[in-house]
């Protein structure tokens, strides 16, 4: 009986709650007209006006970057007098939101664009065409950015986004393990063979410690770099043929295969269950190759903070050192309500001043050439020169074509049988090349 009473009470409470909630919008106008002249009503109306007309929404997907980005937006607001607010939406929902917004006509005012998706959005005319605005601007000159990032957001001679950042891959290592094994820290003279020798010494027979963990789920921070260091390639310049059957590509992949077979790397199951960054963060592997986007994560983890550091990637036998890189772009909605303000914000975000600040705050390295030096000092526990110096290596943009996902997913899937040893690496590479050529022919 008592429970029933409680329930009735709760239901009643719920009802009154929702009635007030639904009536809220009308209430404000009513009170405003009834008690016209009261200050409260006046300010409330003003506030509402401000929030619908003035504020720009800026959508991003990485919460680690939010505080820094918001600080830069605030600088812009101080100059322009227009409010701008960041909204973090996790990666998957981000693309659902953009897709919904694209068909419904309410995209965020300004947002990040990624190279995997940019082609679709540009071809369908959903992004604001910035070509003429850039030509007229005295702040933006596309020659100041790494050219391949500019190219990612260009379609048929039109520019749809201003480069935001650049990432590089570097070699992260565990100093404590190196000291323990008596191995010299990685340096700029290392070749992949030196790396292999070190990994061998750092691997413990009892399976408690491995020399290296390859990120099988992400080609950009793992085997792509080795392929290009060995002189191979993934996709030809005209985006028509696959490079997986190139003998040098196969040689590089066989290098990875050798490390796996000899047990210098954890097996596929251990890697995919834990993730190689987690294995590194919990002191299970001595070295990983990782992108500059992990810096914040490694800084916030006490173990990596105290024990680890970063150096440039090893080079190929002939001295080629390649970093596969990528970069996001700042884009705006083509049918946005306030495209003038959105452009003004993008122009500011791409300016030298904002790009410099982005690096100084340690958000990411910046796409504006020469502004990333300050990024090195944003973290005191690691020598980020390892990542910065990779900018001077041969930069190769992350291989892409119109439908990158199609052949990339296929390759990741096929490589699984090579990682586990069901198929030889050579066989896997040739098989991938064949399917990839078919996929490219259909584009």
């Amino acid at each position, binding site marked *: 009986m008592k429970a029933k009473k*409680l*329930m009735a009470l709760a239901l009643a409470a719920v009802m009154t709650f929702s009635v007030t909630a639904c009536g809220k919008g009308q209430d404000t106008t009513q009170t405003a007209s009834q008690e016209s002249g009261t200050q409260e009503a006046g300010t409330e109306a003003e506030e509402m006006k401000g929030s619908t007309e003035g504020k720009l929404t800026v*959508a991003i997907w990485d*919460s680690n970057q939010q505080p820094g980005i918001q600080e830069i937006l605030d600088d812009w607001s101080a100059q322009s007098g227009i409010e701008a607010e960041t909204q973090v939406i996790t990666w998957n929902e981000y693309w*659902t*939101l953009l897709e*919904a917004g694209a068909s419904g006509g309410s995209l965020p005012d300004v947002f990040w664009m990624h190279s995997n998706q940019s082609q679709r959005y540009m071809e369908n005319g959903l992004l604001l065409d910035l070509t003429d605005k850039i030509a007229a601007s005295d702040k933006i000159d596309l020659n100041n950015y790494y050219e391949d990032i500019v190219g990612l957001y260009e379609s048929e001679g039109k520019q749809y986004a201003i480069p935001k950042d650049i990432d590089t891959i570097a070699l992260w290592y565990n100093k404590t393990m190196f000291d323990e094994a008596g191995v010299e820290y990685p340096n700029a003279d290392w070749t992949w063979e030196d790396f292999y020798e070190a990994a061998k010494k750092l691997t413990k027979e009892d399976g408690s410690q491995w020399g290296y963990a390859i990120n099988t789920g992400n080609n950009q921070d793992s085997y792509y770099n080795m392929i290009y260091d060995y002189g191979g390639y993934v996709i030809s310049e005209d985006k028509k043929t696959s490079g997986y059957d190139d003998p040098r590509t196969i040689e590089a992949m066989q290098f990875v295969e050798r490390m796996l077979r000899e047990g210098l790397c954890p097996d596929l199951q251990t890697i995919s269950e834990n993730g190689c960054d987690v294995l590194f*963060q919990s002191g299970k592997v001595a070295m990983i190759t990782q992108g500059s986007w992990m810096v914040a*994560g490694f800084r916030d*983890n006490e173990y990596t903070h105290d024990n680890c550091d970063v150096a440039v990637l090893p080079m190929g036998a002939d001295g080629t050192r390649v970093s596969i890189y990528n970069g996001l772009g700042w884009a705006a909605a083509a049918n946005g309500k306030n495209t003038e303000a959105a452009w003004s914000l993008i122009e500011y975000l791409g300016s030298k001043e904002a790009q410099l600040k982005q690096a100084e705050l340690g958000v990411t390295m910046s796409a504006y050439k020469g502004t990333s030096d300050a990024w090195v000092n944003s973290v005191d526990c690691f020598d980020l020169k390892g990542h910065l110096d990779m900018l001077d290596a041969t930069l190769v943009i992350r291989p892409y074509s119109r439908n990158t996902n199609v052949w990339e997913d296929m390759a990741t899937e096929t490589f699984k049988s090579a990682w586990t040893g069901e198929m030889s690496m050579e066989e896997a590479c040739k098989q991938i090349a064949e399917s990839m050529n078919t996929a490219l022919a259909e584009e």
Partner: protein
Amino acid sequence: MEAKKKLVSIIIHIILLACSVTMLIPFLWMILTAFKSVSEATSVNPFIILPTVWRRDAFDNVIKNMNFLLLYKNTLLMIAGRVLAAVLTATMAGYAFGRLHFKGRDLMFSLVLFQMMVPGQIFIIPQYLMVSKLGILNSTMALVFPGLVTAFGTFLLRQAYMGLPKDLEEAARLDGCNIGQTFLYIMAPLTKSSMVALGIFTTVFAYKDLMWPMIVNSENDKATLASALAKMQGQYGSKFPELMAAALIACIPMIIIYLFFQKQFIEGIATSGGKL
């Protein structure tokens, strides 16, 4: 005989105990992780169960960074709106489908059932478009919107009405009730337990709804608990202690609701045969 009974009961209790421990582990894990450091939380070694030092930094940080009062308010308003709307529309529709005879009833009802059989995700984009065209993005109304009508609730209440004896309706008619009065004074009060079950289901579903609030209410101060928690995850790596601390704080209202409505929760599942 007595001894054998006792033994059986002990064995049953051991099995039940083992099951309840299994159920509790995720909660305990959440609580323990909230007090750990980031590296303890992500350690591959599963035997680090207790934090070496009990820290409360994670709690301090999330309380500082997140406006929980606002999130509670948004979530409660969404739940209240959806519960009210669901109970209201489902009772009326359920009565119509269960007790009234009109042309096209079965066809219409099969359309309702059809809605239950397709995955809810396919409605997201059309519903987003409606909300966007109505101009109510980033509002409580947007959160409530997909819960205004419910196929599951209609079905549940229809079953409840179909189970009631015909005599009641006839008696009401003889005493001069019209359809509205029969429904309001005679029939509806008899399905209270189904309404409560529906209310509880709606509460739980609304509370854990993630994708919808994330997409329609992308503004930070219009988020719900679930969507605010999801936003704490970084693209590469998350601060798990903070995430768990926030999750713990977000759980509190549900735990309180459960404590009060424990009996109805269980009855709701028993009568409807649904799962949470």
